[in-house]
């Protein structure tokens, strides 16, 4: 065996191991869409009143629903592109890992809206904390950038809840734009670069 072949085999083994345990259907387009939608949602509060629970709820519902749609469409497209099943063992593991954070986020959202008195403005920090925790919980099955996004969102969630409490509710939406919006844009760019690299290499197919 030539050294070059040994290095190539090691690279292939690594790719195979990643392919076996990691969820590979995250798409750059979904990340970018979620980021841009969040930035647009945050920008809409230049015109809308964030302290109004109705407009706040409608804007973020549109943002989350849009992000979810983009993720679903992106996953289906990537699954077809790679010839992989969408409902795979890795997908089930990701959903199971995410479920507690999603349920906690939903329950807290309902609670904060029900309490009233402007408490809904604490929700961006709650969402970032829940999402960050969920992203970290999936990091065993997801690509490394998800772990960094999770850590960043936990940090931003903590900062946001502190600033919202200490300095006022006006901090919540801009920090959501930075943490959730720019965080997803960064994730999207990273995934985009990896997708391009993957297209040019396609190491796995040479082996299996």
């Amino acid at each position, binding site marked *: 065996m030539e050294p070059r072949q040994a290095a190539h085999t090691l690279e292939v083994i690594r790719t195979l191991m990643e392919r*076996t345990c990691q969820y590979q259907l995250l798409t750059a387009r979904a990340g970018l869409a979620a980021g841009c939608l969040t930035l647009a949602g945050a920008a809409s509060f230049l015109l809308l009143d964030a302290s109004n629970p109705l407009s706040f709820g409608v804007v973020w519902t549109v943002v989350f629903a849009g992000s979810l749609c983009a993720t679903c469409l992106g996953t289906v497209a990537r699954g077809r592109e790679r010839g992989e099943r969408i409902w795979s063992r890795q997908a089930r593991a990701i959903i199971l890992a995410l479920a507690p954070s999603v349920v906690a986020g939903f329950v807290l959202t309902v609670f904060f809206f029900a309490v009233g008195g402007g408490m809904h403005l604490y929700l961006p920090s709650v969402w970032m904390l829940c999402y960050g925790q969920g992203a970290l919980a999936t990091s065993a099955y997801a690509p490394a950038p998800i772990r960094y996004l999770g850590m960043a969102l936990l940090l931003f969630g903590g900062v946001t809840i502190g600033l919202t409490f200490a300095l006022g509710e006006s901090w919540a939406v801009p920090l959501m734009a930075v943490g959730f919006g720019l965080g997803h844009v960064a994730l999207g760019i990273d995934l985009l670069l990896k997708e391009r690299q993957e297209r040019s290499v396609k190491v796995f197919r040479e082996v299996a």
Partner: protein
Amino acid sequence: MNDFKRLVEELDPLLHERGRLAIVSALAAASQLTFTELRDTLEMTDGNLSVHLQKLEDKGYVTIAKRFVGRRPQTSCQLTRAGRQAFVLYLDHLEALVHQARGQARA
């Protein structure tokens, strides 16, 4: 015999076959995989995968368990301790080959 040739000859011949190496690599990453998951991940045919799994089982590198999930039979495969050790040793040999070549290139 030079070190390079010795390292090549020490490579486990059972794992040196690319199909079996792919199977062991996949099983090393996941605690347990079903036959279908392995087949889909590695894009192998049923027959090819069966033959390789049988050889790995004969050598004691994998365990194959069959059970029923509802009314459907399910075959699941797992790497044994011996299989994991052989895989790690194989990786060590490959890394040693690469390091040695790198050292020679620098000299």
